[in-house]
């Protein structure tokens, strides 16, 4: 198991390298630079700044410099948040994003699996059709439409929940962003669960369990749920990636000081190191989460565990 995990991590190095190369090239290809401002600076000051941050070197030298820093765990200084390294910025912002993402993921799993299972058990009834219709809508509408609509309805019109992050609003400030982030995932997981649950319920071993006098609840709980969750589990990797990208939008809309917001600001400000740092961090995170999913797969399915 440990050997497997290590091999997988080693195998992720080329992927990460490719991500870094692409991100590096794209950031530098964008017009403008980190120290362009409305106020025009004298040429020699600009040159000094460029020299201080090695921006006057050819691109490949800058890349090698960046890589060697990365190997030593140094993501470099931020170009815009003076006196802060990128590592420090990620360290402050990530816990916020993590809380948000983890809650959204948990909500999506619980609601999605429950809704999908009920739809499967009541297959082709009104309940099934309504759940699937709602899910289809959830998948079709992008977050940047859902989030403002939620704010408009629940925060502005009904005034049940705070619309943003600022002010002393306590834990309720999480509710709307988490829902907005989770909704598309709930929809997707519900559809996945329904399909796989229908398959599992038609399998021979479920017929055996029914022949043993286990009622529907016991059949689902002891026999069907675990196998039906396998497709959902393998979707967890992509789901994590989707929530990460979703959080970039949601944090901007709700004004949450998370990693997503830093990312957007960083991109607008051409804060090369900050953008690159977040990209590398997220890429590593997705690789790691996919590894966890694969290991969990073996925990659930004993036939895989043996190999």
């Amino acid at each position: 198991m440990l050997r497997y995990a290590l091999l997988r991590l080693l195998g992720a190095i080329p992927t990460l390298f490719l991500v870094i190369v692409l991100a590096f090239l794209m950031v530098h290809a964008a017009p403008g630079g980190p120290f362009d401002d409305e106020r025009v600076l004298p040429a020699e000051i600009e040159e000094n700044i460029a020299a201080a941050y090695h921006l006057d070197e050819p691109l490949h030298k800058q890349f090698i410099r960046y890589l060697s820093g990365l190997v030593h765990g140094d993501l470099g200084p931020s170009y815009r948040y003076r006196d802060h390294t990128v590592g420090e910025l990620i360290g402050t912002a990530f816990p916020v994003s993590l809380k948000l993402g983890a809650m959204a993921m948990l909500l999506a799993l619980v609601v999605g699996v429950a809704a999908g299972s009920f739809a499967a058990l009541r297959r082709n009834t009104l309940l099934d059709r309504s759940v699937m219709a709602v899910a289809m809508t959830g998948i079709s509408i992008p977050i940047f439409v859902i989030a403002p609509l939620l704010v408009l309805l629940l925060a502005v019109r009904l005034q049940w929940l705070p619309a943003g992050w600022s002010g002393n609003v306590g834990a309720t400030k999480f509710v709307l962003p988490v829902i907005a982030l989770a909704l598309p995932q709930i929809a997707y997981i519900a559809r996945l669960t329904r399909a796989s649950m229908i398959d599992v319920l038609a399998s021979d071993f479920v017929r055996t369990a029914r022949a043993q006098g286990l009622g529907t609840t016991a059949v689902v709980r002891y026999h069907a749920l675990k196998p039906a969750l396998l497709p959902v589990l393998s979707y967890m990797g992509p789901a994590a990636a989707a929530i990460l990208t979703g959080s970039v939008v949601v944090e901007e809309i709700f004004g949450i000081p998370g990693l997503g917001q830093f990312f957007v600001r960083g991109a607008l400000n051409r804060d090369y190191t900050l953008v690159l740092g977040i990209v590398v961090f997220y890429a590593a995170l997705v690789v790691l989460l996919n590894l966890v999913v694969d290991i969990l797969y073996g925990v659930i399915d004993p036939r895989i565990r043996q190999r």
Partner: protein
Amino acid sequence: MSLLEVQELTIRYDDTAVVRGLSFAVEKGESVGLVGESGSGKSQTALAILGLLPGNAEIGGSIRLEGGELLGVSEHILNAVRAQRAAIVFQDPMQALNPFLRIGEQLRRILVQHRLADGKEAQARVIDMLKRVGLPDPERQYRAYPHQLSGGMRQRAMIASALIAEPALLIADEPTTALDVTVQAQILELLEEIRADTALLLITHDLGVVAGHCERMLVLEQGELVEQGATRDVFARPRHAHTARLLAAAPRLDTINIPLPSTGEELLQIEAASVSYRETGRGRLQAVRDVDLTIQTGETVAVVGESGSGKSSLVRAVLGLIPMQSGRVVFCGTALHGSVQDRPTEVRRGMQLVFQDPVGSLNPQMRVANIVAEPLLVHKPELSAVNRQKEVAVMLESTGLGEEYLQRYPHELSGGQAQRVAIARALILKPKVLVCDEAVAALDGTVREQILALLREVQVDSGLAIVFITHDLSVVRAVSHRVLVMYMGALVELAGNAALFGRPRHPYTRALLEAVPIADPEHAGGKATLAGEVPSALTPPSGCMFHPRCKYARDICKSEVPRQRTLDGTTVACHLADEI
């Protein structure tokens, strides 16, 4: 009051009735066989008794168990009946047991669900039950997952799960169809032994199984009961024509109908063929060990053995579908090398293959005409479309399928028709060797007879050599000129048909023959003379690999690998072949 009373049972799907006005009774403690071909409604009847039919089935009539009506009652009442009053053993234990749950957990859940036991007591009862069905080391099997057991052990666990709540009626739906003949005999004996005063309703297509294990029998034809009575009487004096037909097609070891080999030219020589597979992290698995075999034109050679004996591996290696570890294959005077892709076209055309699952081996998106024409596209591209279609029609005609089948898709064919299409596809290139890998195993008795007759006819007409891989010894008896018996990848006996069935030389061959259920209640075979199952090929026993299961085994068998020798034309690998 009978234990089970079924009256005027009718099961319909949309407008098709699969069971029509079926009435019968099962008394306490008796064993009744429910016999019929596929589609006769026997499994539907079993599922109806336990209320397990799908929601779109329309059910009419009455099913009473111990006086209580089961049709139309609530799930709640049914759940109390299931397992406790009536239980079922399904055909394929790999599918029927939950692969995600430990065996013990699945059995314990039944006790807990029915409030029969809990906690430590439940666990103790499960372990005791596993012991009673003959699982070695029951504490360990309690924690095992289904895939960690062999097929026979899985079916034992399935039987344990059916009997653990002490039902009054046990339904067994083709309980041994997925198993080897030796294991089948063990499982049937176990059922007999362990059920005590539980009544048994045994559903099967195999009249041999009924002859050996049922006091009474019921015969179904297309959903209708056509005959019932004491097993002896029905076998001796079948009153209905369908019963007589079933009996005529039943597996026997005393019928032979073999054409003489036409020319006897050597066609295919296999010399010291070995095949091995690499198992990740567990070393090499030796699937075939130094097997020699020569096949002549116009000859049928059967390859038999339990699952895992290497029969399919041997043939696949000869065809070039899997790599051969060592050995030599000579076909029509040319030595063959490498995989099938690297072989010359004439060689590839000369050897064709028919698989077990007839529908699964045909592309579901192609019409019959195109399926049969495909080999011509590859091997005779010069043929015009019109001529190609003509050849296809002629070929199909000769396998007994008229022009109306040309435009059909595989799912529109019955099993027998699909197998005819597969045979037509194999024969359209006029091969010299046809390999049939369990080609009739999935077919009903009467259909199987027809397919075998077709193959015989082709052989007489064209001098085709046939290699018949099968686990069914009655088929071997009916079609083969010579028989190769394999055990753990090695040749144990190679003999002519009459010699093998008349005077088997190897103890393993004998045990196989004794295990075959014979469709005759007076001389029922199906004896479990072979204990245990095939050992793991990763850790083969020393000396003669068969010695741990051999009742004649002596010290020499444990230490020395027996050499092959020839006795009266029979090649046999046994130290004691001339003594026993």
